[in-house]
């Protein structure tokens, strides 16, 4: 089973001072995200696995793949609560 994530089409992102602000037009909520969180949401314009996202972080920041995977896991968990991701599961 492969799980791919995409950002909700109703999200609007903007970057300021290296960080991000996210507007969710669907839920009418808004919140700020860290620089790496913004990078992940930008990457999620197209469907990605958690491994894809972890590798994207290692390409951008000086972190181990293990550390990046843990960060991605925490990020995805937070995103679930905010209804900002669409999840596709392929057998």
């Amino acid at each position, binding site marked *: 089973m492969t799980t791919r994530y995409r950002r909700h089409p*109703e999200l*609007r992102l*903007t970057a*300021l*001072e290296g*960080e*991000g*602000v996210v*507007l969710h*037009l669907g839920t*009418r909520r*808004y919140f*700020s995200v860290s620089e790496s969180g913004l990078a992940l949401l930008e990457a999620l314009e197209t469907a990605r696995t958690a491994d894809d996202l972890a590798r994207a972080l290692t390409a951008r920041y000086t972190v181990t793949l293990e550390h990046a995977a843990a960060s991605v896991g925490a990020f995805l968990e937070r995103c679930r609560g905010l209804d900002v991701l669409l999840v596709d599961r392929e057998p």
Partner: protein
Amino acid sequence: MTPAIAVQCAHADVAAAVRAWLARSRLEPSAPVTLAIEVGDPELVGSDERAAFWQPGVVVRAGPPQGGVRIAWETAPAVADLPPGATTARVVLSAAAAARIEECLRTFMLTVLVLLLRRIGWHHIHAAMALDPQERGWLIAGNAEAGKSTTAALLASCGWAVGTDDVSFLTGQGGAVSAIAYRTPIALRPGGRRLVQRVAAAGGVLLPERRKVGYWPEELGGRWISRVEPEVIMFTSVGTGGAVTEAEPLGQRETLIELIRWSAWVILESELAEQHLALLTALARQARSYRVTLGRDLFARPARLAELVA
């Protein structure tokens, strides 16, 4: 010259009231928009089951499946439809709404106008707007209890130019963000009237339905200004018992979060939200911003506000 905000209405009294209201507001949009108003039965417009966005007395529905925006007045039956991309608002007022036209204009029709002007890139923000003696543009944003009107009156009494105490529109022009004023009297409650000394000498206009008295900036010793490029933004609140006015600088991200809060229509209509958010982001970069707790010292020393951002 054709007015930029055209009014189509066969009901003579309603048409006259709407045109007078628009003339008072002194809004001059850069592109034409139209208010097409009829007095009839709002029930015939049909129901709208989309999620509601509530304002005092006004209900706004937007988004799929039909797109566009539907605005309804709760005080008396009235409905306005703004189809996707349209620059004409189709408004149906019941006879009861037409009979309360001044109240209708101040609440329902103002919301219609706000959402109509959004179609030409004018984005509403709950903010007072002023120009200080150094020619710096100011926005003072916050809710109805944030001290915007009292501060605007105080600044006018010090000779500042004041555009509005509550309703501004943001628009991008030549790479800079401008704030445009919707002209209405600065509306003060009795507490504010007592504190702004110059108000005592000015006549003011009684606004009984709002339990306030309205003053034009000119009556208070200032002047009116239609547009500024904001360099300073204050997100104000009134201190509880605090005597001293204090300001805390905000970063751009915190500023943007606050701007979204006070320019809340940004969440409507995805095709406009991107432009609206980009404008707020540009404003967050353009201006220095502060979270300000207003204290009573300001009445004796209004210059403190400018000193805090010097």
